[in-house]
């Protein structure tokens, strides 16, 4: 075993070529070839039927919703949509596959020759990279094996293995890039940005919940290295890459490892490798030296798929705006920069902010509430911000109350505290909690007089024209009214009382 070579050093000697295969579980209500539900987390083998269990005699019927979804994915990735294509059987024996073949696509994929332009953040600013898409095809997922006993976590060495076929037959889309060359030291970041952009597109299309942690988006990263001017090297295929961060780390780890192998005069073995989230390294899995012969042939139990051009154009016309384009548009509309936009996206509140702005709230206010207060509460409660019991209309109402002077910022927070606690609408919370700005001038004047009496030196400073000193008095008044006053109004009354004007 040779030691890995540090990344920067590896990139001085070698050029990486990467390729990414992304599997996306579609969010259809039913499976690819039967009517079984697809929900995650059900008791093992409760979402099965003769078809997805592959019982003798059962036959598949293709899910029209799944075919529509994959065509929309293909269109979003600028692919050509086949006028006629077939499913194929991929034959191999494995106990997670009920029929010992997987219904997939081989030489007639439904979507081919696309591309996706991505923006890769670098220290020198964003860089645009075009990723060419080789194909997008559909297939059925396999069951899930759990290996008990032994210490490998694999089927070999296990005492016994359990199979859950709930996942068997869930529609999967496989998106395969062409080899990505010439990205050099950006290769890991390119891989990450590509998967992130794909994830956003799937979300925007509404075809999948793309939760990497639940396996609804899975990534295999192919990496090879060659010395400049040499042909491409032998590639490894790293599986088990289950987060965006892991995509980046896995590519980086493979570059470092392969550089060490090649630098040591050895050759890279063509094999499947597993990425370990905890250690950040890859270890060898199944060797692909003797390529398995899958004996593909057209699936005779299914009829060919021939999407009409009219239908394809209908689907194209209803594609949502590309996420990156939408982000650029919204950033311009709201007058914010990349950093602020990234904050909203990372917090998962972009849609919510957009909806709130659409409800009539100023963009700054909408952003402030969602990326501040609500993100914090969502994190505390460990829920998605969208699942918080607060609506864009609630925010609109609170902002109205602020604008009218009925609430100030501090009170508004208390209103939302009530709304988030399930105490009702903003108006109900205001009423129930008695939250209203003290607008009775005589009460405020009394508080101002009391504060002036307590701080005569400050009063003198203001009188002598040092208006900026007013803050101390305003603060004291706000404290005395427990925040239920409008600070602006307090300031105006104070200055009027002392007979100075706001210069």
């Amino acid at each position, binding site marked *: 075993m040779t030691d890995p070579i540090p990344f920067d050093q590896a990139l001085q000697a070698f050029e990486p070529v990467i390729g990414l295969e992304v599997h996306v579980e579609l969010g259809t209500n039913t499976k690819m070839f039967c009517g079984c539900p697809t929900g995650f987390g059900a008791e093992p083998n409760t979402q099965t039927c*003769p078809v997805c*269990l*592959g*019982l*003798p*005699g*059962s*036959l*598949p*019927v*293709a899910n029209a919703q799944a075919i529509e979804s994959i065509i929309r994915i293909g269109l979003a990735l600028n692919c050509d949509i086949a006028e006629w294509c077939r499913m194929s*059987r991929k*034959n191999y*024996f494995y*106990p997670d596959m*009920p*029929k*010992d*073949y997987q219904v997939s696509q081989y030489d007639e994929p439904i979507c081919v020759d696309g591309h996706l332009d991505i923006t890769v953040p670098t220290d020198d600013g964003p860089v645009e990279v075009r990723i060419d898409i080789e194909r997008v095809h559909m297939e059925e997922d396999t069951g899930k094996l759990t290996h008990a006993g032994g210490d490998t976590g694999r*089927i*070999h060495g296990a005492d016994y*293995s359990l*199979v859950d076929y709930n996942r068997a037959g869930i529609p999967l889309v496989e998106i395969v890039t062409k080899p990505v060359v010439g990205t050099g030291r950006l290769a890991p970041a390119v891989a990450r940005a590509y998967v992130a952009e794909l994830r956003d597109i799937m979300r925007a299309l509404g075809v999948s919940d793309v939760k990497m942690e639940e396996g609804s988006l899975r990534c295999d990263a192919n990496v090879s290295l060659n010395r400049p001017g040499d042909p491409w090297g032998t590639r490894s295929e790293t599986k088990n890459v289950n987060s965006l961060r892991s995509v980046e780390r896995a590519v980086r780890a493979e570059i470092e490892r392969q550089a060490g192998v090649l630098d040591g005069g050895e050759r890279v073995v063509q094999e499947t490798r597993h990425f370990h989230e905890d250690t950040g390294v890859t270890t060898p899995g199944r060797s692909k030296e003797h390529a398995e*012969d899958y*004996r*593909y*042939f057209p699936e*005779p*139990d*299914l*009829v060919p798929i021939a999407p009409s051009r009219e239908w394809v154009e209908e689907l194209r016309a209803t594609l949502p705006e590309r996420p990156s384009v939408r982000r650029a548009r919204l950033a311009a509309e709201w007058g914010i920069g990349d950093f602020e936009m990234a904050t909203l996206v990372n917090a998962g509140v972009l849609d919510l902010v957009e909806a709130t702005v659409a409800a009539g709230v100023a963009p700054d206010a909408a952003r402030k509430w969602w990326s501040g207060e609500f993100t914090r509460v969502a994190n505390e409660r460990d829920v998605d911000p969208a699942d918080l019991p607060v609506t864009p209309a609630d925010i609109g109402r609170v902002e109205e109350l602020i604008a009218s002077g009925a609430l100030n910022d501090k009170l508004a927070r208390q209103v939302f505290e009530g709304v988030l606690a399930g105490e009702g609408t903003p108006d109900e919370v205001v009423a129930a909690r008695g939250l209203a700005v003290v607008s009775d001038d005589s009460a405020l004047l009394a508080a101002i007089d009391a504060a002036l009496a307590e701080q005569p030196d400050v009063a003198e400073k203001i009188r002598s024209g040092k208006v900026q000193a007013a803050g101390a008095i305003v603060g004291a008044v706000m404290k005395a009214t427990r925040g239920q006053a409008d600070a602006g109004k307090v300031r105006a009354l104070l200055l009027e009382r002392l007979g100075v004007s706001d210069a």
Partner: protein
Amino acid sequence: MSPAADLVRQSAAVLAEAIAAGEVSSREVTQAHLERIVDVDDRVHAFLHVDAQGALEAADAVDRARAAGDALGPLAGVPIAVKDVLATRGMPTTCGSRILEGWQPPYDATVVERLRGAGIVILGKTNMDEFAMGSSTEHSAYGPTHNPWDLTRIPGGSGGGSAAAVASFESPLAIGTDTGGSIRQPAAVTGTVGVKPTYGGVSRYGLVALASSLDQAGPCTRTVMDAALLHSVIGGHDPRDSTSIPEPMPDVVAAAQRADVRGMRIGLVRELSGEGYQAGVLQRFTEAVAILEDLGAEVVEVSCPHFDYALGAYYLILPSECSSNLARFDGMRYGLRAGDNGDRSVEEVMSLTREAGFGAEVKRRIMLGTYALSSGYYDAYYGQAQKVRTLIQRDFAAAFDQVDVLISPTAPTTAFRLGEKVDDPLAMYLNDVATIPVNLAGNCALSLPVGLAPEDGLPVGLQVMAPALADDRLYLVGAALEGALRDRWGHLLIEEAPAL
């Protein structure tokens, strides 16, 4: 109507009318057939499983429905035997294989569901070559079926059990499946009627697949009209089978009633005659052709030159599909599991299970198909066979431009002796030389008895072939010819079968 001995010799149509008219109960009819099975099946061995209790309960349900004045289907209360390759809830489904011994499907095949829905009484499951691979029923893991005409001879295959059950009067109706002739060739050698419907005309849901692009379930009966009645019950679109044809089926019962060939053009297929065909088979076939001309049909000779390559293409396509279809029998989920001693790997257990569970013919075809689909060989074998298939479809299309139906002998010989060809796969495969082209093209065909070969006194079958979705033409010709022969003989050919 009675006694029991007479009941078992009636056609399904006659029995259904008698039951509907209250002249006899379905229970009496069912009981009579169950008794017949007890009397003769130890010698015939048509059945792998008899469900006497289930059959009587189904019969009682029909009798109750009739008593209540409910409308009954055209075959309600009539018993049937089902080839053991169709999934039946609550009854074993073995496909004639050890690997599925004891397996009870949790669901009914669509064909079975439609039988039950029509009030047809399922007597049990019939013997077959393992996974429908064979032409003699000798490849059943549960022992061969014997031809009721001569118990030392084969009943044809793979559906020898269904044909023998009908020929031995154990059941008036049976369901067979036909991938390369497994309904028609057994019908021919047992003196019965068998129909392979248009591909997609009868649902394959629940039919344990041999070769998905060729398999089709169909009727096995003693009369053409019974076949039409059964065909109309099991046929028609099924959304659970993607290859099921959505268009409505032609009215096969009306066609069987019309039984008229006047003005029809009938083509004799030059390639399905002559060398390799037994003299007595050709003699009876030629006589039947003359009868068809007498009945007013115009008979011409047509050539289908690519039929000579049908057998070769078939023995690449079928094994290829079957090698994949039979992969699921791996001992992991149902059926036999062999060698699982706690130490062996999953691959070893799968391998030992398949070694122990499959017979020689099944293994032979799985190996052929695995080879034909292998990388580097696919184009030369599977790919080439698909091209031949297209050429055969074109031969049929060209022929059907000239004629309404094609005819040929169903099988080149009469029933051969048990054991005669079991160790000679090629000789066995040649039995299907005349029936295979129809499966490759997806067309429909019917076999009916046209007499006994003079040299051995055994039944000879004639095959009528029609274009896809023109199943009605099979019945026009079949019923007309059957009627003329019955007029000539004074009875059905099957009446001449020796008493068992």
